[in-house]
């Protein structure tokens, strides 16, 4: 008798986010990466009221999106992929996706070739990666049943 999921709703930013949330490791941490991107909806509009969470051994990160739909994390480089969980108003249950830093990961073999690129971050700097999330429509991000 599982408890059903319900939407995060729009009014959580006075409650769930905290200042250190996006920073899973301190600045200058060896091997740290920065991950940033935007969440957009089926019309390509930013989603300004989403909450993103990541989890790695010993680490947890949480970041709300800004008015332009953007988010950012600083965390350890994942061994394989980084699981990314997104809650939002309008999402009655969250979406799960996976951030891969390279396109040659074996986990990507399970994914249809035409959509694989949505799971691969773009390298923007030495240790800076961009990963945009498209909830719906052209270029829709691959989401997983977890």
């Amino acid at each position, binding site marked *: *008798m599982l408890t059903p999921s319900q939407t995060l709703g729009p009014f959580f930013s006075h*409650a769930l986010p905290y200042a250190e949330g996006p920073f899973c490791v301190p600045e200058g941490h060896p091997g740290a990466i920065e991950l940033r991107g935007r969440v957009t909806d089926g019309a390509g509009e930013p989603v300004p009221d989403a909450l993103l969470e990541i989890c790695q051994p010993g680490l947890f990160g949480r970041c709300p999106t800004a008015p332009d739909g953007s988010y950012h994390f600083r965390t350890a480089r994942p061994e394989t992929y980084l699981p990314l969980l997104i*809650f939002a108003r309008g999402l*009655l249950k969250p979406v799960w996706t*996976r951030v891969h830093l390279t396109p040659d990961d074996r986990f990507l073999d399970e994914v249809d070739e035409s959509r694989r690129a949505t799971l691969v971050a773009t390298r923007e700097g030495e240790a800076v990666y961009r990963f945009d999330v498209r909830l719906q429509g052209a270029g829709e991000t691959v*989401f997983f049943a977890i």
Partner: protein
Amino acid sequence: MPADDPHPPYLHPPYGSTLLRAPAQPLLAPKLDPEAAELVDPVYGHRPVGDLDHDLTRQRPVEPLGERIIVTGRVLESGGRPVRGALVEVWQANASGRYAHDLDRHPAPLDPGFHGFGRCLTDDEGRYRFVTIKPGAYPWRNHPNAWRPAHIHFSVFGTQFAQRLITQMYFPGDPLFEHDPIMNSAAAARDRLVARFDLGTTEPEWALGYQWDIVIKGAA
């Protein structure tokens, strides 16, 4: 999806915000080996949970207005195993139906005695307990004359990230149930979202008590 999946669909047209946010493509069901990154234990050690974090009526110099209530219950895995030491977070509107959030435009009064956020860790039996005030119903713009039934938002962690749940708890007998597309997105499982009034939890001369258990999927 398993047959006993109680979760709402992504697309639920009566709730208008799902129209442009619901993924249209089918979900991929990956093989989760025991080392899968989703099965990691979420660690949220940034801020230790304080002794008063569970009491939403004692976070300001003045007490909030409204009907004081106790909300308690257990966090369980679907097999019945209690989830111990798990973080439970709650947030809610004040007694007038207004959130202490910059973008809430409902013309109901803010309450200087109420911020509307609390947290606690479950005990060895998986039990959580909050002291708060009963939130008010509030209007929203989903459809003409739309009102949300009174509810408390709950965020729950298990021992694996994959068990993560965010949901809402409702109060028994609310006449707004049948008019609320969010609650009704859970279809027949919507009753599981309704707390039970409990005289045993009620504290004489002080606060009404409600019981509500939360069941998350079992750890893999």
